[in-house]
């Protein structure tokens, strides 16, 4: 009978053997583990509990540290649990709390085991089962074991009692009706003098108050007492957490509590408690000037501390204050700005947040400038953090704080050149958005776009492709603002565009189309057919310079000829350039690229004839055709010159549905078809689809055939390119990006070293905080087109309405005795003793309010003296009542005594008064 099991247990591997085997790694970890699992599966079926429990323990180990599922052993764990031996029980409880969850099928079988152990005389067994309950309790377990937990709440073993208190949290959460049974005992424990019990109770209340503070307002006097008397930092911290939640609900409570908190803040030596005081004051007592000042003093101490933890927490607390008292940040700006260059990433990000909080309309340019300089020096991660926060701050509420858009647009250009910049998408969106919204900035926008497009080095950086696509779109759309469309054309068609993904390539080609049409239009239509004369009025002011006209198309009109008038000759070259650059793309794999290239080439074919003819000065022969071409140019130009405005997201909704059109019919099928197609993001201006990288490579292969001189390695290519087209490369500094009529956004002094910038920033923020100094901008803020509802409004934070959940309802019932909350279905089958308890509570509150009515008549100082008396009395009374109550509970009588009936009637009275208004304030005094 026990022979095989004995053999099993003799040769069974223990957990230690398992660990040793794992460490030796003879057959590899995975193989070893699967072998061990096989053994375990066998052993766990053994009838010998020792073998079984060892197997279970090994399984726990593998599950916990090597992440193997152990749900198959759920029933075996229960079997081990039934063992009378403590060591087996312990393993079983460990396994259960590791692997059981609400949907474990054998969960219901555990109730009796738990009950047995909860009533055990061995405190460690009780503790094990409580621990397990705190982990796995569901509605049923919580309901069935509530009586046991209730008993344990007044256990005379501290070890058990504090755990019973802690388990109440889970029981309440899962089964709110247990509040009616246990809440009073829980509150009794608040008056316990043992710090361990107190710590556990306060811990539970701080968790409860976190979820629904209002229900616990009536307990404020108890918490107040603990706050004043407590010697333990743990308890004080928890009580502070409670008051941080309660104080905003009841101003009179805040009045009372703020003084002890300040006292604690001055007196304590523990940093954790000190920080908790500070945090409590800045979150919940921010109207109390003196308290805030004291807290800010402590925050300053934290921020200059050597310990990075304290520094971080100090900055964190400061950012909490910042929302209400910005002056605090400005007072401490030196420290904040110094922290920007701290080695600790947490500290840097926190201080960045604070710096951004100081940004206003008046200093945005200066702060951004300095931050961009910080970004240049930072590691990639923080660099992008900085750029991201600049972008989001500046674009907040439709560029609310931007006055000088020319400056902002050039800042965007500058930011995209920062080596680590990964914010391409955001910059892209903003460039296009600003182009659409702000008419006045388009000239500058086109100039910034040109600077980006013309730099072949940027094409190699895949993070910038999105920015370049915006630049290409902008320069095509607003080409009339361009100083030199010919140069733009070359930039758009340069060979290195082969590095772009196809979707952006397509945008380039489309923009090239627009630019080309514009050039032709100025040359032939507006300027008439007179060849060789600078074409449009807008170009008249430019000097007429000789056109540097290379035979090859790749050699550009350099920057030496700052403004190239559009001549017939240049048009001819332009057309050649287009043909040369785009003909390889006719074989592109990407349909979008191919189609657009074909469009453009087709157009060029149409036009070429005329252009050639007019350049040859043979007007007579081709008069007819020339006119035709001009017509085409005019038509296409008209098509392109129609302006695109920003479109409200809800614009579609404004279009009235025509009569007889049924929108919701017969489209049900579409849903199934479309469900597996991902919809593109609902951007107002999307440029294409996400690209596929393989296309790029095949695409560049084609390019190489043509441009055999260039290799594919981007670095060597870059170097070579720089040599050959040095004039396209912008000087590396931030050269005169901005015209001079603007305030010192580009002040060269600001580009100094770290310390300089820091001090400058300090100065600037100081200026910014001088209230309402009128900025003397040389230009008024341009009009920003806003759409009525489509533009994002500041998001209003919704506070979750937690009043109506059943837990708080139950707690309120107990504390206020209010019966206006309708009983839940489960409440009806409550034992009658609970109702008794509630009635008692009514009585107490009534008596108390009477006392307080008396107290109210006296002066406040008098009241304070009375307070302790009243409390004493109340406690005594309460205790007496409770003793009564528990006695009765034990009797479990179900009949209604006449006396109870009477108390019920008496209790009826105060119920009619709304409890919050009458009861709470009286408690506080």
């Amino acid at each position, binding site marked *: 009978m026990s022979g095989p099991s004995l053999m099993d247990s003799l040769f069974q591997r223990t957990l230690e053997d398992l660990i040793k085997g794992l460490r030796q790694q003879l057959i590899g970890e995975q193989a070893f583990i699967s072998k061990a699992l096989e053994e375990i599966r066998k052993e766990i079926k053994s009838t010998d509990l020792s073998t079984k429990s060892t197997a279970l*323990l090994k399984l726990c180990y593998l599950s*916990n540290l090597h992440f193997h599922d152990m749900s198959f052993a759920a029933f075996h764990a229960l079997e081990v649990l039934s063992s009378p031996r403590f060591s087996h029980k*312990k393993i079983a409880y*460990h396994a259960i709390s590791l692997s059981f969850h609400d949907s474990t099928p054998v969960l219901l079988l555990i109730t009796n085991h738990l009950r047995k152990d909860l009533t055990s005389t061995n405190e460690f067994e009780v503790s094990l089962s409580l621990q397990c309950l705190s982990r796995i309790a569901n509605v049923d377990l919580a309901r069935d074991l509530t009586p046991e937990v209730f008993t344990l709440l007044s256990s005379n073993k501290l070890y058990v009692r504090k755990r019973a208190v*802690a388990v109440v*949290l889970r029981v309440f959460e899962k089964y709110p009706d247990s509040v009616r049974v246990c809440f009073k005992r829980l509150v009794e424990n608040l008056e316990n003098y043992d710090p361990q019990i107190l710590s556990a109770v306060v811990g539970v209340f701080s968790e409860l108050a*976190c979820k629904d503070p209002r229900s616990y307002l009536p307990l404020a006097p108890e918490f107040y007492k603990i706050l004043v008397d407590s010697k333990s930092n743990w308890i004080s911290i928890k009580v502070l957490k409670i008051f941080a939640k309660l104080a905003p609900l009841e101003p009179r409570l805040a009045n009372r509590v703020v003084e002890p908190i300040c006292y604690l803040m001055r007196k304590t030596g523990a940093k*954790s408690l000190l920080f908790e005081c500070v945090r409590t004051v800045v979150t919940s007592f921010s109207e109390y000037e003196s308290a805030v000042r004291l807290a800010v003093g402590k925050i300053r101490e934290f921020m200059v501390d050597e310990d990075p933890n304290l520094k971080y927490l100090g900055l964190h607390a400061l950012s909490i204050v910042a929302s209400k008292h910005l002056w605090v940040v400005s007072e401490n700006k030196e420290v904040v700005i110094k922290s920007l260059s701290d080695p600790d990433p947490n500290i840097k990000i926190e201080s960045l947040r604070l710096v951004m909080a100081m940004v206003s309309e008046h200093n945005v340019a200066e702060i951004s400038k300095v931050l961009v300089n910080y970004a240049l020096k930072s590691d990639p991660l923080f660099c992008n953090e900085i750029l991201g926060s600049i972008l989001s701050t500046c674009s907040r509420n439709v560029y609310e704080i931007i006055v000088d858009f020319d400056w902002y647009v050039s800042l965007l250009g500058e930011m995209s050149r920062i080596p680590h910049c990964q914010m391409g998408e955001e910059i892209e969106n903003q460039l296009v958005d600003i182009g659409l919204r702000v008419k006045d900035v388009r000239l500058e926008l086109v100039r910034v776009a040109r600077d980006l497009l013309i730099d072949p080095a940027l094409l190699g950086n895949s993070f910038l492709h999105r920015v370049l696509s915006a630049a290409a779109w902008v320069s095509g759309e607003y080409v009339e603002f361009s100083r030199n469309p010919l140069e733009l054309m070359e930039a758009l068609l340069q060979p290195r565009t082969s590095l772009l993904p196809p979707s952006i390539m397509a945008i380039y080609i489309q923009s090239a189309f627009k630019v080309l049409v514009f050039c032709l239009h100025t040359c032939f239509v507006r300027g008439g057919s007179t060849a060789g004369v600078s074409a449009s009025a807008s170009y008249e002011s430019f000097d007429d310079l000789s056109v540097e006209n290379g035979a090859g198309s790749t050699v550009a009109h350099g920057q030496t000829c700052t403004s190239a008038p559009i001549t017939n000759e240049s048009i001819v070259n332009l057309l050649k350039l287009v043909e040369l650059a785009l003909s390889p793309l006719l074989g592109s794999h990407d349909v979008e690229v191919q189609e657009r290239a074909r469009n453009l080439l087709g157009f060029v074919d149409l036009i070429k004839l005329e252009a050639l003819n007019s350049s040859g000065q043979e007007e007579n022969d081709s008069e007819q055709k020339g006119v035709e071409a001009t017509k085409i140019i005019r038509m296409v130009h008209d098509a392109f010159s129609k302006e695109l405005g920003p479109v409200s997201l809800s614009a579609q909704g404004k279009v009235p549905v025509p009569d007889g059109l049924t929108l919701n019919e017969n489209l049900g099928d579409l849903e199934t078809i479309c469900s597996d197609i991902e919809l593109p993001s609902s951007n107002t201006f999307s440029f294409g689809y996400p690209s596929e990288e393989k296309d790029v490579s095949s695409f560049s292969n084609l390019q190489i055939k043509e441009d055999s001189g260039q290799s594919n390695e981007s670095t060597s290519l870059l170097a070579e390119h720089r040599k050959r087209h040095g004039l396209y490369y912008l000087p590396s500094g931030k050269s005169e990006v901005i015209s001079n009529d603007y305030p010192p956004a580009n002040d060269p002094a600001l580009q100094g070293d770290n310390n300089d910038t820091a001090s400058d920033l300090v100065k600037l923020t100081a200026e910014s905080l001088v209230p309402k100094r009128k900025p003397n901008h040389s230009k008024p803020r341009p009009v920003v087109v806003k759409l009525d509802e489509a533009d994002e409004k500041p998001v209003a934070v919704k506070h979750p309405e937690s009043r109506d959940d059943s837990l708080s309802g139950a707690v309120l019932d107990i504390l206020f005795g209010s019966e206006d909350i309708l009983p839940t279905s489960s409440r009806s089958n409550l034992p009658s003793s609970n109702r008794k308890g509630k009635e008692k509570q009514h009585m107490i509150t009534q008596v108390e309010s009477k006392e307080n009515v008396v107290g109210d008549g006296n002066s406040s100082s008098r009241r304070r003296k009375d307070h302790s008396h009243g409390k004493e009395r109340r406690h005594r009374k309460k205790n007496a009542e409770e003793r009564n109550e528990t006695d009765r509970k034990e009797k479990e009588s179900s009949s209604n005594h006449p006396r109870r009936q009477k108390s019920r009637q008496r209790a009826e009275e105060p119920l009619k008064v709304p409890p919050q208004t009458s009861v709470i304030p009286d408690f506080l005094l």
Partner: protein
Amino acid sequence: MIKAVMVMNTQGKSRLAKFYEYLSVEKQQELIRGVFSVLCSRAENVSNFIDAESIFGLDSHLVYKHFATLYFVFVFDSSENELAVLDLIQVFVETLDKCFQNVCELDIVFNYSKIHTILDEMVFGGQVVETSSSEIMKAVEEISKLEAASNAISLIPKSASGWRSR
């Protein structure tokens, strides 16, 4: 409330994992990996906090301490104090140190059950119930005694009955 306690070594091997809400093993592994990938990228002598909201969801804070080859990590919500939890880690490590006389990673590797017992004495269902390392020691020793006793009693009758049956 404490959400999770983890101990892992500097190679990312998990040495102790305790989650106070049920999580599937896959999810546990994912979280531990997530935490380690952040931990291993941090320099020495920086603050002991990590932004945990990206890993554990809203209202999560993470405090860790680095001792020799081990990271001790506590994850908790806003009802705990960061510095207090940092002290708690200290208590935990001190207790381990007392239990094993100069604790090292190997002790933790080989004493799986005992480590859990120690932690359970400190943190009960996500709530801190004991912060004194001597109290924890006392309880742990009693529990060990009890375990040993229950095993010792068991051996005699079992073997006796085993012999008798032959």
